[in-house]
Structures are given as structure tokens and as C-alpha cells.
């Protein structure tokens, strides 16, 4: 057994009276991948933020290689060899890869009073790190032009530019395609061999057997237990995460033959070509595909967010022109975008104001707005969707991911849509909230709403959809009833070149 590199004991932290972390523990060995799992609000994020110095702890001790440490800033933690890669990247889009990697510690030389940054050296060093990660990204590339997967790699390179002992990865796979995830796993294995201890936070339980050595489970701010991966099948992990009495749901299809919406020959440059499909009343239509397949681009064009080159939409058999989201909303379409923080919500505004944004026209009175109705509606959704919050006046930014997503759903349900487009509705949220969202999708379909759901998680697409269309490189390569489908079959379609 390898030695313990990082140990946390009895760590507690409260925010304004609520205990976010209660006497938590963690023991990380060198060269292991230690997964932290737990529902939203279980305390994982708080714990890692304390370890990296982003938060200060109220109580408890943290030991790095048996020496007690008391870091007060992320900078200090990095000096000690603790680095983190967060879900929200800390990269600066307008700067080059090399400058991002060395940001805050640019190598410079003094010539008398004049300081000169050694660009050549920085670029060479950055190249070395990138080579070590087996990446062909040029250090001179501007970060803004990179894909999400490449940015993540740069983020990891940035962490490695310090002499690190502990690497914390927060939901690293959340926005990656399966292909990129595989590459990332290879990379993680390389880091393990160097004796780096890796704390791996993930909601994707399926990937844990592949990557993790041990798993620590947290629930409601408390440490529950640590399991070896071979004694922790998914069922056991879920039981520990949510406590007793939770089961995975399987939905009952309620699709009808009535065509709600027909999308005909949608094309937009290189993003997607000649896509047609129908959506039925009460149907859940899954859109599957690898990253870059054009799924998000397609639904954004349907909703009128981005322009398209050609194609038309018929709703209830009548051609409907959609030039912008306002038109789409009028046509009875709702859109839950993949980026709830940047696009779905206004984080500094109260929940009820966020809800009201989509229904301002419905709140209109003879003069002014019926703001009591807005608060009432939000209160109704808080109870019906089980949104965990203080009250409807709380700022959206203070809610956990799963609850934020429910607010986005609420704001579109308030428009009484006939068609609901959900782009990655469960990204980055915990299994408990995920199941609630699946139940909700089921309920909405039963009410006759036609739902288009994009998901990068194939098990999710298979669990929720009645029918699935698969996109690959902007073309529709498959349209299949969800009967006896497996992930392998979907992957096969997702890697085809020929459109159907």
C-alpha cells in the first residue's frame, strides 16, 4: 500500500448558519485516483475548496505528507503542491496557451532595472508539458479558439506546471465527449504513475470503475464511508449517496401518432446539413451524437437563437417562421439550454424574476405587471418541482446546480409550452436531482408535451427517450425506435459517415 499524501480530519464549515460540511474526512494516497461522490449539497465542493484554500475551514485539520497545513489562498496551496482543475475553467480566452499555463509566474530576467519576460523559455516549457500530456496543441494558440476538451487539457497542463503532489479534478468529464474522456483517462493514468494523488469529483458513476481506485461518499455535508472500487458497484454507491429507499426509474412511453412539429431540411454551413425529423405529441425524442456532431447547433437554430441557411418548421402541420427566440416562444416552444449559468439564468436576480422573464407578456395588467402572480407561480413551482431554496426571492446564483436547472425548467413550464427542447438537462447535477428530472420529463410527456432531449450520456438517452435520432458531423446518421437499443448500437450510428 502506498503512503498517505493528504489527510483531512474533522473538517467543518458553515455558511451563514447552515452547516455545509460537518466533521468530514478524506484520506488520499499517492498514486491513487480517489473519487468523491455525493448528491448536490453533499459537501464535496466545499471540501475541495477548503483543501485548495478557496475557502477557510471553521474546524478540523489537514495534513500534507503528515505535516499539518493551513492554507489561506489557492496560491499558497499551489506553492505546497496542491492544484485544482475546476469545472468552470480559469483560463483567459484572449491569451495564448503558454501564457495561460504560466499566468502569475511568467519567467522573467532582470537587466538592471528593466525586467524582460523570457517568452522563448515559457513557450518551450509549455511545449514540454503539453508533449508530456501527448497533446499536439501549439503553445502559441489563443485559448479562445480551442475546443472544450483542449481547454481542459490546458487547464491540466497549467496545474502540472507547478511541482504537484495532489491534483483535484472537479467534474472533469462533464463537458467532454466519450472520445475525449478516454484520452483524459489515459492522461490521468500517466499522472498516477508519477505518484500524484488525484481527487476526482464526478456525478458519472459509470466511469468510476474505469478510473477510480477508491471512492469516498458524502451525504448532507457528512462523510459516509470510503470504499474500494471493487467493493462498490453502482447500486452500492447510489444507496450510500442517497440513503435508503431510492430506485432508478424506468419510464413508460406515452408517445402518440399526432405530429406536433416537423423540421424539414435544416442546414447551416458546416454545422449541420439537411436534417429532417418529426416530433410527436407526448414523445421524448433523444438526440445523440459525439461532441461536435451539431446537436446543440441544430436545436439552437430550431429555437431561432442562431440563423440557418435553409429549412422550415411546421407546427401542427402549419408552416411557422421562427427568426428569433421570441418567435419560437410564441409558437409554443421552450428551450432549456446547455449552459444554465450563462444562458439559462440571471444569477444575480431572484428566482421569481428569473421565472418572470419568459412570461412578462402574461404578467401584464392594464398598467404594469402582476408581480404577486409571479411570486405565486414561483412558489408553486418550488413546491411542485421540489426546488431546494430559501424562498422565491433568493438569488438564482445561490442555488445548487440541480436546483438551478429546475428553476430553468420552471421558467419554461410557465410559458405552457407544447414543445420543450432540453439540451443536456442533467449535466453536472447529482443522481438524486437527475432522477427527479427524468420523472419530470415523464410527467410532461404524459401531459402531451413533445420533448427533444440532447444528452452526451448514452445511458441517459437510452433511459429517457422513446425514439432517438443520431447525428454525426452535422448529418443525421440514424433514426431509431428505442427498443432493445444498446450503447454500442448508438455509438455505431454516431460514428457513421453516411446520412440516412
Amino acid at each position, binding site marked *: 500500500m502506498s503512503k498517505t499524501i493528504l489527510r483531512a480530519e474533522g473538517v467543518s464549515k458553515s455558511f451563514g448558519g447552515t452547516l455545509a460540511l460537518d466533521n468530514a474526512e478524506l484520506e488520499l494516497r499517492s498514486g491513487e485516483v480517489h473519487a468523491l461522490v455525493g448528491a448536490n449539497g453533499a459537501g464535496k465542493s466545499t471540501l475541495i475548496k477548503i483543501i485548495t484554500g478557496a475557502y477557510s475551514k471553521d474546524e478540523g485539520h489537514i495534513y500534507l505528507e503528515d505535516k499539518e497545513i493551513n492554507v489561506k489562498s489557492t496560491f499558497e496551496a499551489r506553492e505546497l503542491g496542491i492544484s485544482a482543475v475546476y469545472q468552470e475553467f480559469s483560463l483567459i480566452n484572449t491569451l495564448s496557451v503558454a501564457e495561460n499555463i504560466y499566468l502569475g509566474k511568467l519567467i522573467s530576467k532582470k537587466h538592471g532595472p528593466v525586467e524582460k519576460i523570457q517568452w522563448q523559455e515559457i513557450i518551450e516549457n509549455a511545449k514540454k508539458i503539453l508533449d508530456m500530456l501527448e497533446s499536439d496543441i501549439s503553445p502559441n494558440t489563443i485559448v479562445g479558439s480551442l475546443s472544450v476538451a483542449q481547454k481542459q487539457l490546458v487547464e491540466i497542463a497549467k496545474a502540472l506546471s507547478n511541482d504537484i503532489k495532489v491534483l483535484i479534478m472537479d467534474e472533469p468529464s462533464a463537458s467532454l465527449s466519450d472520445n475525449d474522456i478516454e484520452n483524459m483517462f489515459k492522461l490521468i493514468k500517466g499522472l498516477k504513475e508519477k505518484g500524484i494523488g488525484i481527487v476526482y469529483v464526478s456525478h458519472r458513476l459509470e466511469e468510476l470503475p474505469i478510473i477510480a481506485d477508491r471512492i469516498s461518499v458524502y451525504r448532507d455535508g457528512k462523510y459516509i464511508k470510503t470504499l474500494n472500487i471493487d467493493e462498490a458497484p453502482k447500486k452500492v454507491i447510489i444507496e450510500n449517496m442517497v440513503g435508503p429507499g431510492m430506485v432508478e426509474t424506468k419510464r413508460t412511453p406515452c408517445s402518440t401518432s399526432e405530429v406536433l412539429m416537423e423540421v424539414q431540411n435544416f442546414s447551416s454551413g458546416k454545422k449541420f446539413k439537411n436534417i429532417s425529423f418529426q416530433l410527436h405529441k407526448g414523445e421524448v425524442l433523444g438526440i445523440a451524437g459525439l461532441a461536435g456532431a451539431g446537436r446543440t447547433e441544430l436545436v439552437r437554430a430550431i429555437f431561432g437563437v442562431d440563423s440557418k441557411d435553409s429549412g422550415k418548421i411546421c407546427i401542427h402541420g402549419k408552416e411557422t417562421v421562427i427568426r428569433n*427566440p421570441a418567435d419560437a416562444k410564441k409558437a409554443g416552444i421552450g428551450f432549456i439550454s446547455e449552459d444554465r449559468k450563462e*444562458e*439559462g439564468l*440571471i444569477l444575480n436576480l431572484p428566482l421569481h424574476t428569473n421565472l418572470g422573464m419568459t412570461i412578462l407578456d402574461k404578467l*401584464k395588467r392594464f398598467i*404594469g*405587471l402582476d408581480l404577486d402572480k409571479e411570486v405565486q407561480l414561483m412558489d408553486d413551482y418550488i413546491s411542485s418541482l421540489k426546488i431546494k431554496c430559501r424562498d422565491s*426571492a433568493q438569488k438564482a446564483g445561490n442555488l445548487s446546480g440541480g436546483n438551478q436547472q429546475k428553476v430553468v425548467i420552471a421558467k419554461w413550464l410557465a410559458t405552457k409550452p407544447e414543445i420543450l427542447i432540453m439540451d443536456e438537462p442533467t449535466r453536472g447535477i447529482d443522481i438524486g436531482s437527475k432522477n427527479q428530472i427524468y420523472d419530470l420529463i415523464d410527467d410532461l410527456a404524459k401531459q402531451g408535451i413533445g420533448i427533444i432531449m440532447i444528452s452526451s450520456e448514452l445511458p441517459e438517452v437510452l433511459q429517457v427517450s422513446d425514439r432517438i435520432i443520431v447525428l454525426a458531423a452535422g448529418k443525421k446518421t440514424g433514426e431509431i425506435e428505442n427498443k432493445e437499443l444498446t450503447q454500442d448500437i448508438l455509438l455505431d450510428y454516431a460514428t457513421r459517415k453516411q446520412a440516412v
Partner: protein
Amino acid sequence: MIKADNTVVLKGKNEVSKFNVKDFLMKYIMYIVLVLMSITLAVANDKFLTTGNMMTILKQISIQSIVAIGMTMIIISGNIDLSVGSVVAFCSVTGAMMMTSGVPIWLAVLLVVGIGGLLGFVSGGVTAKLKLHSFLVTLALMQAVRGLAQTITGGYPKAGLPEVFGAVAAKSIFGIPILVIYMIIFYAVFIYIMKYTAFGRSIYAIGSNEESARLSGINVEKVKTMVFVISSALCGVAGLLLTSKVRSGDPTSANGWEMDAIAGAIIGGTNMAGGEGKLGGTIIGLLFVGILANGMVLLGVNAYMQSVVKGLVIFLAVIINSIQKRSQN
């Protein structure tokens, strides 16, 4: 649980209901400073705290305060308008020229407000449609419109207005100057618009997160354009009041008003980055500057020094605001 939450809602939207001296100080510091400053001035000079002097201060800020309404709305929407001073001057001279050449007063008023609105339509429309930075668009407009005002008048003030029009700004009702009453009415209407109408709410949404507002089905282009139209139409109103007050249309008037309006909004807590701000705050900001200027005149501070003090106060207010914001988070 739900019961408890509801009582919080009824109590108001504050985070903490328990009284806390530090929070209280933080929240009301601008008011406290305003009161302290007034007390100091009242002690230092017995003319300060007279009804007459109070009315003078209010009257002095009244016309600018109407311009500041539009500016506050524009800043909340995430934009800026540098052209307001020029638009006020242009509207002032066109109004004066129409009335001196025999256009009926009512028609001249409508036309001038319309011209103001049209100028706003240009700056707002270009900003929204072409997705340009409003700073650049209105910087250009500021220069062009000021030049236009000077071209059509040959650079000289236009006097000789009908006597009746002078009364529009000169009257008092129950001892309150009518300009102050206009100010109160405009603020009441626009505070309501910002808080309780779809338009006002859309402005906050766009200023906070334009993409999110667009995806929620808010017509961002239309709302942005409208904000500029309304702001410039208000400049038209201010231009007319100015013409009435000084009985002439001067192409060099209202110089630097854009900066005064921005200062009022910022001192009043409007966030330069958009999404946050209140018209009630703007009026406090303007009062702050107005009382300070008045006090310095009473105390005989020389004009150059007055400007230095004003600058320092604006700087101080900005720092206080940023500390307030940080303490909230």
C-alpha cells in the same frame, strides 16, 4: 419549513432581519454622509437650511435630473450614452427656432420631443442592430449633434421666445418651483416603469445577462433601441425646459451634462457593468452633488477648488459603492 419561508418573504427581501450596525451603516452610508454633510453646512452657514435655499438646490438639479433618468436606464441596460448633453442643446435650439418663427408652442413641443426620440432611435438602433459599443456610437453622435446645433444657429443663442413659454419653467405652485414638480412626476413615472413593467424588467435582464434575456424570448434589439429613444426623448423634454428657463436656445448649453448624469447614477449605486441600479439612487446622487456645490458657494470656496472637491467626492462615492457590493457578497 414552507411557513417559515413565507414569513421571510413577507418581511421583505433582505437577507437578514436581525439588526446589525455594520450592515446598517453599509447599506445607508450614502444617506448618512448626505445628512452629515447637510448638518455641517447648516452649522457653518445659517443660509443653508432655509426653505428658499433648499428649493434653489432642487431647482438647480431638476432639469439635469430628467436627463439622468434616461442615463440610469441606459447604464442599467449595459450601455452608455455620451450624446445626451448635445441632444439637450440641439433640442433646445430647434425648439427655440420653431417658436420664434411662429410654430405653435404645442406643436413645437411635440416636434422637439420627437426629434429627441429620433436621435435616440439612431444611436440605439445602430448600437443594437450592428452590435456596436454604445460608447463609440454615442461619442460620434455627441460630436455630430453638437456641431449641428451650432451650424443651424450660426453659433449664437436664439432668443425672442413667446412670453407664455417662459411660464412653463418659471411658475411655482404652493411655493414649490414647477421644475421640481416636473422632476417628481417624471421620477415617479419612471420608477414605476423600471420596477413594474415588462419593459423595465427587460432592461435589467438585458443588462445582467443579454444572452439569457434573448433566450428567454425577450426582444433584445427592440428593448435596447427603446431605451435610447426614451432617454433622448427625455433629453428633448430637458432641452425645452432649459429653453423656457433661460428664455433662449443656446447651442453651447448643457455642455458636460452626460458626465453629470453618469456621476449621479454612479454615486446613486448604479453598476457601470449594467443590470443593477435604481432611479431613487440617482436622485440621491444628484442631490449629493447639488448640495455639495451649493454649500461650497455659500462657504465661498473658489470655483476651481469646487471642481476639485466634486471630483474627489465622486471618487469617494465610487469606492464606497464597491465596498458596499463586496460586503453584500
